[in-house]
């Protein structure tokens, strides 16, 4: 029989596969015989075939992986045998008899499998006390000391008996059958024996195969760990039983086996298997075991698992927090963490960071008020990692970032600013990761709507955000990154709001110091502006001057300041606005703002209007010139304000603020000047627009141009302005002047070139439609004499 031939060398995959194939053929053949014998109700044959089938498991030729495949085949068949035994029992054969009978099997391993199978049936029938059978089989199984064979035999044992243990409330619990402690003892004994076999597997064969064997052992770890899981699942297992019976024996076995792989796995399995309150109650014992582990064991990882469990326990269970505080769990755990890093200076950076991240999460959950704990964890982490240099990319980096993110998520940014060790840990990261964390801080700050209300906090915050403020060696950013960073920092500036103006000044000083004089910043702004040719710095500055001028005029009522601000805007307009399109747009904005400003006296305003009017003819394109002149026409015509009567209260309000010094020579706010109404100047502007359009028309006869800026459009635009002022009762626009304009446009628009443009004709039709509406409505009197012609 193949089982007795140990021909194929181990490790030879082809050989093993061949062996497994033959073994499975044998198993199937014997399984067939077994089924047949069961059908024929031949107990002796059934046992004979079973023993032959189980004999295949006696091989030493298969690695654990292949052995497992074979084991699964066999254990499937044993399931039928169990049913057959139950049938036999119903037919009157006693289990005691069967229990005796199976012991006649010639070989030890088949005999023990059969014994286990019958024993399980025996307990299930409740004819034998569970305790006795359990003790018997567990002891007998000691007879198999071959690691692989022994491990799987005991795996079968646990599988077969796990539902038959005399746990509290189970049908097998009785004075004779035993109680939950006997159940635990059975699993503990099995655990101890399996672990010994598992450890011994490492030392089987030559030293050349060490690596492969370790891999194989890893695959078998769960077989051993399951014992711990089952113990933890035992009904009625009290904390006292865990503390006095289970934990000491488990720890004793774990420590004394002196095997790195087993210790690493089993400590984690132990922490995962048992409930959090058990760990909390035995924290001292558990932590005391850590120093006794082999030097290669990653104690930091073990401690991380424990801390994670305790933190989530405390998070879900407020009473546990009291218990943890009482026994100074944080102090104990922090002490152990510190000793781990001191005793194992070569622990991986990732593991150290992971351990401290877990400790920080624990501290944050259990003692949310105790910021000094958080700070201490950060400090210890920094001490442990300082000598290891910059944290490299990968897992270690992710752990450190997680460590830094925990306080941000747990507390607000202002609280994080109070953590003195935070910047130190941050400095351990690579520059671009520091920038990532800085982005996270800035976004978190904005998301939570927090306020930075003191210069001290502003300074600390800007320190953390340093990678967003200036160039850092080792970070390569493209222009869009720089733009995003700047926009983010600009948003952060809005939340720096102090309670009083003195402190606000100090905040602004800090801000200025951080942002502006730094050479790096200047370099960066320059780089950003050069890189982004599209950034309209002059346009933005000009627009800001106009805002300031509007405020100075309409809110503060400071004539000189208003005038000065317009001068500044004009200076920028003359020198810095880069292209004609933006010039046209900027001039429109200037005119729009100037139109609104009522603080200027006639002379000052006249000077500014004159200047603005002068700019029109300097625009590059005639169309822009024409539209600008039309806009300027409004500077000679202001509406009376509906709220003119409310001006006094406005003035007294600006008095009350008192923050703005009065301009030299101005004793009090000047009254707003009356609306400007200079109809002659308006008309002169409209005529000027017309002249420009005619000139464009002449020019275009040679060149040709886009239709939306063509003379046709300008004519209609001018006509609209005539109508605008006519409706407002500007006396200079007489009915006959308007009639001339209407006729002129009608004739221009009937030209072949203008007829081709549907857009233009629609604009014209809409304009005429407006007049007809007026003629049929409110403007009936006004427009009574106007003829719109044949159009």
């Amino acid at each position: 029989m193949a089982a007795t031939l140990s021909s194929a060398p181990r490790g030879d995959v082809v050989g093993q596969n061949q062996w497994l194939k033959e073994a499975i053929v044998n198993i199937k053949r014997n399984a067939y015989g077994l089924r047949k014998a069961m059908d024929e109700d031949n107990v002796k044959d059934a046992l004979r075939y079973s023993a032959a089938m189980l004999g295949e498991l006696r091989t030493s030729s298969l690695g654990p992986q292949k052995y497992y495949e074979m084991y699964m085949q066999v254990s499937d068949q044993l399931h039928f045998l169990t049913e057959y035994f139950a049938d036999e029992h119903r037919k009157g054969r006693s289990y005691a008899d069967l229990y005796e009978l199976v012991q006649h099997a010639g070989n030890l391993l088949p005999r023990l499998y059969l014994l286990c199978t019958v024993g399980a049936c025996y307990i299930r029938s409740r004819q034998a006390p569970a305790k006795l059978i359990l003790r018997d089989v567990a002891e007998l199984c000691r007879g198999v000391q071959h690691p692989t064979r022994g491990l799987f035999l005991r795996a079968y044992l646990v599988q077969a008996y796990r539902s038959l243990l005399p746990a509290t409330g189970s049908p097998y619990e009785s004075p004779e059958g035993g109680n939950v402690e006997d159940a635990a003892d059975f699993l503990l004994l099995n655990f101890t024996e399996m672990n010994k076999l598992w450890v011994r597997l490492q030392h089987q064969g030559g030293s050349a195969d060490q690596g492969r064997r370790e891999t194989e052992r890893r695959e078998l770890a769960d077989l051993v760990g399951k014992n711990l899981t089952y113990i933890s699942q035992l009904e009625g297992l009290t904390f006292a039983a865990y503390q006095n019976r289970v934990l000491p024996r488990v720890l004793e076995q774990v420590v004394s086996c002196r095997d790195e792989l087993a210790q690493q796995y089993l400590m984690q399995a132990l922490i995962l298997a048992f409930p959090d309150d058990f760990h909390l109650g035995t924290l001292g014992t558990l932590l005391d075991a850590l120093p006794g582990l082999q030097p290669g064991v990653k104690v930091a990882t073990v401690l991380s698992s424990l801390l994670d469990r305790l933190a989530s326990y405390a998070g879900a269970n407020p009473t546990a927090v009291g218990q943890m505080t009482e026994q100074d769990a944080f102090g104990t755990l922090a002490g152990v963490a510190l000793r781990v890093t001191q005793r194992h200076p070569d622990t991986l950076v990732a593991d150290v960071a992971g351990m401290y991240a877990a400790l920080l999460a624990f501290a944050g959950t259990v003692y949310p008020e105790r910021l000094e704990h958080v700070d201490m964890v950060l400090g210890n982490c920094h001490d442990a990692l300082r000598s290891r240099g910059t944290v490299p990319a990968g897992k270690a980096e992710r752990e450190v970032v997680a460590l830094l993110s925990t306080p941000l998520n747990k507390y607000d940014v202002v609280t994080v600013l109070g953590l003195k060790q935070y910047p130190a840990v941050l400095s351990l990261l690579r520059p671009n990761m520091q920038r990532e964390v800085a982005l996270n801080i800035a976004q978190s700050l904005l998301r939570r709507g927090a306020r930075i209300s003191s210069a001290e906090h502003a300074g600390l915050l800007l320190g953390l955000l340093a990678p967003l403020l200036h160039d850092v060696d080792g970070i390569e950013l493209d222009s869009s990154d720089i733009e995003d960073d700047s926009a983010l920092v600009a948003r952060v500036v809005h939340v720096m709001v102090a309670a009083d103006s003195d402190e606000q000044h100090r905040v602004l000083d800090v801000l200025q110091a951080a942002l502006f004089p730094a050479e790096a910043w200047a370099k960066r702004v320059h780089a950003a502006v050069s890189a982004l040719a599209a950034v309209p710095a002059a346009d933005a500055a000009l627009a800001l001057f106009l805002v300031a001028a509007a405020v100075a005029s309409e809110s503060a009522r400071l004539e000189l300041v208003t005038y000065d601000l317009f001068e500044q805007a004009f200076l920028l307009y003359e020198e810095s606005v880069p292209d004609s399109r933006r010039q046209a747009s900027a001039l429109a904005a200037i005119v729009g703002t100037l139109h609104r400003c009522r603080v200027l006296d006639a002379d000052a305003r006249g000077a500014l209007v004159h200047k603005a009017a002068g700019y029109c003819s300097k625009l590059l394109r005639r169309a822009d010139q024409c539209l600008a002149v039309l806009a300027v026409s409004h500077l000679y015509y202001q509406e009376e304000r509906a709220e003119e009567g409310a001006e006094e209260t406005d003035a007294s309000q600006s008095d009350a603020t008192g923050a703005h010094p009065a301009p030299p020579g101005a004793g009090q706010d000047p009254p707003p000047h009356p609306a400007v109404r200079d109809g002659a100047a308006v008309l002169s502007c409209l005529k000027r627009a017309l002249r420009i359009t005619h000139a464009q028309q002449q020019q275009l006869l040679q060149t040709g141009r886009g239709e939306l800026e063509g003379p046709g459009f300008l004519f209609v635009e001018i006509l609209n302005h005539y109508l605008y002022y006519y409706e407002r009762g500007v006396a200079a626009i007489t009915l006959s002047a308007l009639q001339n304009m209407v006729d002129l446009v009608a004739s221009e628009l009937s030209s072949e070139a203008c007829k081709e443009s549907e857009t233009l004709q629609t604009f014209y039709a809409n304009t005429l439609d407006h007049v007809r509406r007026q003629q049929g409505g409110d403007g009936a009197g006004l427009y009574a004499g106007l003829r719109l012609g044949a159009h």
Partner: protein
Amino acid sequence: MLVLVIGDLHIPHRVPDLHEKFKALLVPGKIHHILCPGNLCTEATYDYLKSICSDVQVTQGDFDDSSKWSDTLVQTYGQFRIGMCHGHQIVPVGDRAAAAILQRKLNTDILVLGHTHAFQAYKHEGRFVINPGSGTGAFSTITPDPIPSFVLMDIDGPRVTVYVYELHGEEVKVDKIEFSKPASL
């Protein structure tokens, strides 16, 4: 069809961000088009609008970092021709008759304007003008203490229902205005 009209955000120059209450309302996947009359002011804000709806139309504001947007544009949504302009170019600022000239030129049923930071919706000679105000209630020299607001237009055949969202303190108030396209236009 839902068209979001939101403008004059002035992020980050005048305010740190759009209010959370508004952000919560502006969820992706519901809005078909976004019209922004200008002053986003940065690419990041444009990207944010893009995250709500992929079709974002923008006109040039006086404080936009980029000068790539056009001064006016016209879009046709359903039966409506909708024109848009930021409005800082229109003199006098906020003048209805001046805006009407632009409306005639663009020949639109609805004209969207910005710049004043005050919500406004009115009918003028059979056409409709909407100013959604400032989405963030940013500082303005035209409107003191602006109220954050935006507009959602529900276009359905010849009718548009204009929903106005305003943030009063921490409370969002919604108002509704109906506009129908005149048969003659």
